[in-house]
């Protein structure tokens, strides 16, 4: 009697083991998922952007050069986008653009862009300044911080990946978080009357 009991236990064991093995495999797979972690680098790589020199004419001798292919490395790193969010307030961008809704300066969370929505456009806007209000931050903000701010500005209208965009504010939320903002299709809004040259 006792022996048969033991045998039944022994026979049952593989079945029990197989479910345990599945759980184990799932756990291991979950562990593997955590292997892909964003690398935070503190030493900044040299910029792929170049500082634009302001020209007063759009006409160039010969054919125009091909547009340089640029990418903003900060747009792939959640840490850097969050730094951009911090700097947006600390460097007082919010003084004119408010929390993206605009006020003294244009809104940044909508789909309308006066001077272009590409990273290099926003970079140029910050570095060069724009007529009627936008100051030039050339030499005042280090290059890598400008890239962080550019990435954050684009996250405001949902242009960045959801896992990179900031998830919540430290303060009371005045609007949906950047992560939950739906992606807007950028449009050229044209120059507002206040910015047109007389």
């Amino acid at each position, binding site marked *: 009697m006792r022996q048969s009991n033991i045998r039944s236990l022994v026979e049952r064991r593989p079945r029990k083991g197989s479910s345990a093995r599945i759980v184990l495999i799932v756990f291991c797979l979950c562990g593997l998922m955590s292997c892909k972690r964003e690398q*935070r680098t*503190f*030493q*900044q790589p040299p910029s792929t952007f170049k500082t634009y020199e302001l020209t007063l004419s759009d006409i160039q001798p010969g054919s125009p050069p091909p547009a340089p292919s640029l990418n903003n490395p900060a747009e792939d790193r959640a840490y850097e986008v969050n730094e951009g969010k911090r700097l947006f307030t*600390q*460097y007082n961008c919010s003084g004119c653009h408010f929390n993206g809704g605009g006020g003294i300066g244009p809104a940044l969370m909508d789909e309308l862009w006066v001077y272009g929505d590409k990273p290099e456009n926003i970079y140029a806007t910050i570095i060069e300044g724009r007529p009627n209000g936008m100051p030039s931050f050339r*030499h*005042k*903000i*280090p290059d*890598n*911080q400008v890239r962080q701010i550019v990435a954050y500005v684009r996250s405001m209208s949902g242009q960045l990946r959801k896992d990179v965009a900031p998830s919540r504010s*430290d303060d009371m939320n005045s609007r949906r978080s950047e992560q939950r903002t739906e992606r807007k299709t950028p449009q050229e809004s044209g120059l507002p009357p206040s910015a047109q040259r007389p």
Partner: protein
Amino acid sequence: MKLRRLKYQSALLFLTGLVAATMVSCGGIQNSINPAGPQAQKISSLWWLMFYVCAAVFMAVMISLFVAIAKRTSHSSLQPLLNPLLDGERRRRNAVISAAVLTVVIMFVFLIVSFSVGRSLTAELSNKNALTIEVTGHQWWWEARYLDPSASNIFATANEIHIPVGVPITFSLRSTDVVHSFWVPNLMGKKDLIPGKINTIWLQADKPGVYRGQCAEYCGLQHAHMALWIVAESTDQFNAWRQNAEQTSVSPITDSQKHGQEVFLASACVMCHAINGTPAGSNIGPNLTHIGSRNTIAAGTLPNTREHLAHWIINSQDIKPGNKMPENNLSQADLEPLLDYLQSLK
């Protein structure tokens, strides 16, 4: 025989080391059992009370353990012990009960003493306001603003807090980012700095000296490099220091210093740092009005020398990875004058 002597010698060596370590820990500038103020004195007394009582209990337990081993009964005589009515068994049971009761009594005494010490540390807070200093925790440095009824006498400094000896000082603690904790062990216990909330403590230094404080609540990558210094000095010395600290920055004199000021105002420095008396007025980073008179930079991380300052300005991420100061690609022709200017800000 040889082995036994070796064991004896190593045990002796270990004990000597332990005693030496204890002796060393009695001094020091960041040590709660080297008190320099009334509150730290209370904390220290409480600590020693707990130490002596626990040491006595430990010795008693060890002695009874060794006595029990020495008086162990042989295996054959174990059988009669199973009878609970035996005299020896009753005695043992009484010993266990009285030890348990004694433990509870000791713990209660500790509880009451500890509670009353904790209460007395913060008692009469409102009377202890000979001087109020507003300390704000940032990742990863300390901002200190000396409050004054007349607004023109309010000034800000960072990481180095001078206080007069023998006077209670009120600290109003706040934070701009995450929770930090203000702890200067020689003077007072810990108190957290919580964003959106103001915590208050007072402390008093009775002995002049320099005491090191440290953030005591994990606050991110450079938590370990978030130190501050309390410089306790006589009232005359403190007043002289304060009078200087209230002044706006000295004007640059040499050509090099003048160029240094231009570099400061035209580059990224001006976006975060303030130098009173110049257009630089941002309060994101430490106030640099009197940076030349401070002993350390980067929240107590490095001595304030020309080399360290240059390293910090050019590549601070090398020293404190993750800190909020960006890299600055200044040319040698700009950096040297900038250092001249910053060092002249006494």
